[in-house]
Every structure is written in C-alpha cells, then in structure tokens.
C-alpha cells in the first residue's frame, strides 16, 4: 500500500530552545491505524500540530497524499481531520451549527444529509440543537470528532481521544475508530494507554524525548520483544532451586511455592519440555502450570527507560 502521509526528518525547536521533535521520519500507509505511544511531553502533540499546520516546523518536510503541507497546504490540509486533545469548543454554539461550521471552514459546500449521518453515527443527532456548554464531557469529545469528520477527511488524527474518559466511552471510541477504518479512513492516534494501542492499532510507534524510537506492526512488535513466562507452581514449597535445575536460570517466587521460567517465543526450542522433565526428575510435584505473555506495556516501559538510560549516559559523557 502507498504512503498517504510521509514525514521526513521533521524537527521543531521552540523559542526557548526546547527541542520537541528531533528529526522524526515516518511513513503512514493508507487505511491503517497507527498508535503513537509516548509519555507526557514526548512530542506527540507537537508532531500532530506540525503536520496539521497549527505550529510551524523548524526543518524537515511533511507530505500528505503527495502534497507538501507548506507549499501545497490547501490540498494537504483538505485531506486531514484533527481531533485535539483538549476540549476546545465555543460554549455558546449549537452542536449542528459548530459541525456545519467546520465543514464550511474547509471550503466544502453545505451537505446537511452528510452532517446528519455523522451526528447519528456519533449518537449526537438527538443533541443537535443543544449548546456545547450543556453537553457532558463525553458528548463534547464526540462533537470534536464530528467536527473533524465534517469535511470528509482521508486521514484522521486523534490526539489522546480517551484521556480522562470512562471505560464505556473508551470502548465506544474504539468502535468508532474501527468503523472509520472500515470506511477507509487512515487513523493516527496518540495515547499513553498501552491497552488502547494494543486493542485497536495495526502498527505502533513509540515516541520519547522528541524521537521516534521504533515503528512496527503491533503483532510483530509483541512477538519480537515479547517474552513469555512459564510459572510452575509446586504442591510443596522449596527453600532453594535444586542443583539439577540450575541450567534453566529459574527464579524462585511466591515464597518458594513457584518457579518462574522466561523464554523467547521466537526461539526454535522454548526448552519447556526439558524443563518439565527435569522438574519431575528433581522430585518436585507440580500443582499447576501457567504461561504469561508480556504486554505492550512491559515492552514500552522497557524501551522508554532504555532510552532514558541512553540519553543520561550521553549527557554524562558530554559533561
């Protein structure tokens, strides 16, 4: 598939000298859902703002559907819809009015049928005449999405769409995102909820300190970085790991009631069969066996703390 969004060596340095983006390059394919994961202040919002034209980049380029976002900003921006992180809506306007406004702002002729369809899809139609100030927080978020969709964008940016949103609404949001994907919309969402990326993304990008640490298919990332753990629960606790099991590099956990074995799912042999044989030979009786897969969260924490170590050591060297 072709890249609908192409970011090349994008840098942004704020006036005070703070480098929010340090040369980010990324290609996003048409129709995919990309989740950008990163801690607060990683540069996620700056990246989105620079692509959308809300802030000027310091250097580098962004091409949207083949159009440069500066020299051909009209063509480029027409393809993009943006749902900002903060609820930024004029409190005194009506729902229908503000969504209609968004469409007009993008130069599209009025299309009441389409606006109705969008509002219905987002369960906002009943509220069309309500003023923004009278809506709940969740409804306001839906209005932001409706506004972003009003001009029929091909790419939708969702900047932390579920920050501070209750579980039910979060599930609703995920459903909406899946429906949009089914309609062929490319979706880029930022989040610091790993669960969110895991649940809906096709690819995951990890951003920290203004740098894109990696971008990978979610499943591949999980497989590559994912370690599985096997917990062997014993019917009677042991005080130490038997000599004969030393080669398996086990950990004794749960007050000696369980043995923990980490293995790589990609390896040709996981070593489980040998381990279980050796456990039996050592005279230990198994009560239960459990396996656990490391989540995206573990991977993420590993990556970001690794990055922190690296930057710290670099700045240490410089000093």
């Amino acid at each position, binding site marked *: 598939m072709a890249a609908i969004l192409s970011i090349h060596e994008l840098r942004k340095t*704020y*006036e005070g000298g703070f480098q929010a983006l340090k040369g980010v390059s990324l290609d996003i394919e048409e129709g995919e859902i990309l989740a950008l994961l990163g801690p607060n202040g990683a540069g996620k919002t700056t990246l989105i*703002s620079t692509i*959308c*034209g*809300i*802030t*000027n980049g310091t250097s580098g380029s962004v091409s949207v559907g083949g159009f440069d976002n500066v020299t051909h*900003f*009209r*063509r*480029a*921006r*027409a393809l*993009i819809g*943006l749902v*900002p992180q*903060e609820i*930024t*809506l*004029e*409190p*005194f*306007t009506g729902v229908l*009015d503000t969504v209609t*406004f*968004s469409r*007009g*702002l*993008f*130069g*599209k*002729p009025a299309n009441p049928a389409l606006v109705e369809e969008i509002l219905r899809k987002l369960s906002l139609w009943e509220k069309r005449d309500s003023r923004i100030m009278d809506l709940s927080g969740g409804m306001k978020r839906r209005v932001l999405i409706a*506004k972003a969709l009003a001009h029929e964008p091909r790419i939708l940016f969702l900047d932390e769409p579920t920050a501070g949103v209750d579980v039910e609404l979060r599930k609703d949001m995920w459903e909406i995102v899946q429906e949009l994907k089914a309609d062929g919309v490319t979706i880029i969402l930022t989040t610091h909820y790993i669960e969110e990326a895991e649940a809906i993304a096709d690819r995951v990008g990890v951003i920290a300190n203004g740098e894109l640490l990696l971008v990978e298919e979610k499943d591949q990332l999980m497989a590559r970085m994912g370690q599985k753990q096997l917990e062997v629960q014993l019917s009677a606790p042991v005080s130490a790991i038997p000599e004969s099991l030393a080669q398996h590099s086990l950990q004794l956990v749960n007050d000696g009631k369980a043995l923990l074995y980490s293995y790589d799912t990609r390896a040709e042999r996981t070593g489980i069969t040998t381990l279980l044989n050796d456990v039996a030979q050592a005279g230990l009786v198994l009560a239960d066996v459990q396996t656990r897969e490391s989540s995206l969260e573990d991977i993420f924490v590993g990556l970001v703390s690794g990055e922190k170590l690296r930057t710290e050591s670099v700045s240490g060297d410089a000093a």
Partner: protein
Amino acid sequence: MNWTAVATIYRAEMARFWRTFLQSFISPVLSTSLYFVVFGSAIGSRIQEVDGVEYGAFIVPGLVMLSVITQSISNASFGIFFPKFIGNIYEILSAPINFLEVVAGFVGAAATKSLFIGTVILCTASLFVDLAVQHPLAMVAFLVLTCLSFSLMGFIIGIWARNFEQLQLVPLLVVTPLVFLGGSFYSISMLPPFWQTITHFNPVVYLVSGFRWAFFGQADVPVLLSLCAIGGFTLACMGVIWWIFKTGWRIRA
C-alpha cells in the same frame, strides 16, 4: 480564494453579534444620547457655533468616529482573541485557508458590526440635530474605510494579546486618548499653534477631519491627505497581519 470558508467565518462571527443584538444596539444609542445631553445641550448651549456649524451638529461626525473606532477594535480583537483563548483556533489554523481568507472573515464581520453601530448612531443623532450631508459618497467611504482599518488593527491586537487585560490595554491607553484628542469635540483651529502642530501627529485627526468635511464641507486638514492617511493605515495593518501569518508570530509559534 476559498469564499465558502470566508463566508463561514463571517456568518459565525455575525451570529455572535445577533446573539447579543439588543446589547449591540442599545448601548450605542444610549451612549450617543448621553453625549448629546452633556456635550450638545449642556456645553453646546454655551459654545453656539464652530466654523459656522451648530455645535450639536459639529460633534456628530466625531461621535460616530469615536464609537466606530472603539467598536471596530473591540469587535475584531475579541473575535480572534476568543478562539485563541478557548483553543478552538486550532480549527482555523489547520483549515485549508490562507491569511487573507481568515482576515476577510473576521475583519469583514467586525467591520460590518461597527458599520451597523455607526449607522445607528447617525440615526440617533439625527433625532437631536438637523444633519445635512454635503458629500454622501465621501461620508460612506470614510465610514467604511475607518471600520475596516480599525478592525484590522483590532485583529492585530487580538493576536498580540495574551490575556484579557492586554486585550483592553491598547484601546484604553492608546486609542481612546487619541480619539478624544483627535478633534472629535472641537476644531483644531481652536487650539494654540503649538498644540495644533502636535495634533497633526495624531492619525485620528485626519479621519475626523475628513469625515466632518463629508458632512459640512469644512476640514482641519486637506481631504486628500485624510484619504491618504487612512489608506496608508489600512495598508500598514495589512502588512503587519501578512507578517504575522508568514512568521506565525503568537499563533503558530
């Protein structure tokens, strides 16, 4: 030009005006009436005539200018400051529109509002005094140009301001004194020679003078100079706004 976008911004801005229509309408009528009571009746009865024009009528162009200038600045500055303050300016910045279209929408609406208010004041004034307009076309031209140029200035102030206090600062500290000292309520020829020279550095003098000429055929400064001054001011404001959008000063930084 993306005219749909311009019309969309314009309509949304005007919608705010209609929401507060009563306030937009009553307040200029009331303040103009008060000016007439104080300046026209109380003081005017002692001044009688200025340059052969009855004092009550003489102050009308100045009064209109005073309101139109303050209204243009406050409407336009608030119009662009509000989305900045709320944060929904993101939508305007990420839309496929250029600075001319943004300005046309916001400034066009602000200028329309102050034009409306100027007209209301003129109508109110005509209830108090006999008004004859000698050069109607020039009168309309001066009025429209003033609405436009000061709305442009208001737009700049709205982008410059970081908070509500700053939003009030320029109108309060710069514009109001300039307007009051710009010959709204007196003829410059009434001042001592030294102050007459100083007054010529006040841009509002050229506006009031030109506008008054349209009514009574008399001016403190040549009419052509007045037109050039206001034209130059409009161009200067456009230049600043072009620079703001080019560099992203205070909006895309």
